[in-house]
């Protein structure tokens, strides 16, 4: 499996990672090397083998569908890097919001 520059650029886009142009070719080589090493998995016959997504063989626990926490908007907003607006619980718009660049014109 060999990845070319364009494929790497496409993966970077999918992953929302800015990769400078001059780094695309070396990254393609690096990733191709890793995938070439991973290729050895094709030696293994996995026909009829059930894929394993979790090591715990218990079914995931369920709980009653009710609110068990909340009221911590201020804490959740406290680390927002682009600034956030917190609205006191006394306000009818209580809660708050994160800020992002303009999405809708």
């Amino acid at each position, binding site marked *: 499996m060999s990845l070319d520059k364009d494929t790497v650029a496409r993966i970077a886009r999918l992953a929302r990672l*800015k990769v400078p142009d001059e780094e695309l070719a070396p990254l393609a080589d690096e990733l191709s090397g890793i995938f070439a090493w991973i290729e050895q998995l094709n030696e293994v016959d*996995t026909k009829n083998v059930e894929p394993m997504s979790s090591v715990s063989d218990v079914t995931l626990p369920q709980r009653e569908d009710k609110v068990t926490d909340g009221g911590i908007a201020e804490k*959740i907003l406290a680390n*927002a*890097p682009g600034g956030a607006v917190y609205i006191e619980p006394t306000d009818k718009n209580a809660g708050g919001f994160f800020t992002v*660049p303009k999405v809708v014109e």
Partner: protein
Amino acid sequence: MAALTDLTLAQLKATLDRKEASAVEVAEAHLKKLDEHRALNAFITETPDRAREMAKASDARRAKGEAALLEGVPLAIKDLFCTEGVQTTAGSHILEGFVPHYESTVTANLWKAGAVMVGKTNLDEFAMGSSNMTSYFGGVENPWKKHGDNRKLVPGGSSGGSAAVVAAYMVPGSTGTDTGGSIRQPAAFCGIVGLKPTYGRCSRWGVVAFASSLDQPGPFARTVEDSALLLQGMAGHDPKDSTSAPLAVPDFAAAARNPDIKGLRVGIPREYRVEGTAAEIAALWDKGMEMLKSAGAVPVEVSLPHTKYALPAYYIVAPAECSSNLARYDGVRFGQRVPGKDLIEMYENTRGAGFGKEVRRRIMIGTYVLSAGYYDAYYKKAQQIRALIARDFKQAFEKCDVLLTPTAPTAAFAAGEKMDDPVTMYLNDMFTIPASMAGLPGISVPAGVDKDGLPLGLQIIGRAFDEETMLRAAAALEKAAAFNLRPAGY
């Protein structure tokens, strides 16, 4: 009397119980060591004020007769555990300055058990690495050096800082996390004990996620008993982690104090004899089996046929989960933000600048293997191989009670080595990853030194949720190996 910082965790506990020292005195003695050995770069954040405050509160509880399991014991915490009011970085620029408003379950359990936090330790970025060289905050130096060679060595990774601080006698114990070997390999490199519990034994809630089906918190200490005490303080069912096992916490320390292994069947997996393992490590492995045999154990040769595929399968599963988990670092809710002309560009700029090269590499591998058209060829295939690996262990454990293997193929290497080719670095975890893929517990015990005087570890792997048998075997190995060296100058 020995210096407070020379005591094991169990001895320190006894000293505090006998009121020969206060928690405040114990904290001060260890904080002084943090000052002395700052050059190791083992901490990202030191928390001396928090330590003094917690120690004072611990003394007050003790005065009221309310001493808990780890009352007054100073610990270092891997900077992957969220700690309320204390910066938590995961070793990444993207989380620099992030101050959680909540406490991870494991650390909350430790504080409830009376432990005192001295700081947050350095690690490979998002726990991705085997040398601690991928940390945004710089590599950690291993306190050990080769005889007659002053070059800096790596402490292993990803929990390199947590291993180094215990090896350097800055604290008697610390927490780590292990996804593919991140506790066991650094423990081996630093000549200490490192324990990865069964997946589900310790809660992952509040631990910055890397690969959720593999990540598991665990302790570092200088003795097997100390690691058991810490595990006892960390473990327990947590409804906030749906993969946390609803099981009571056994008396792990009692198991570790009982090195009786008469009749215990110790499996030696033949597939672990591989090229690339240092001759001294292969010899130590044989010696380790002889030691256990002398203590009454029965050696059994077993086969784990899919061993060699564990590593490449891991490098599909772990990056796939990482690419999904790390999608949350988008510059909106926490961490760093780099502006862009629109939302997408803001994401790309933030993530491009915030992640280091190894993390970027793994996100890209993960994104690729999960992308349309490749899912079955890679991700599904890897999950099928994971099932085969788990089956291998299951069959082996029909013939034996624990497995004995080397922990790592080499001793600690120099800072900057193995950096040219990612796969060379990945091979460090060849002996630890198979047990991770199967969710099994493993412990690394220091068992000898190589010709350069560097510590080497042996790994004991147990059955799922049978850490007690694993600890008994580890205690027997520890007793027989009688490893009592410490790095020069520490």
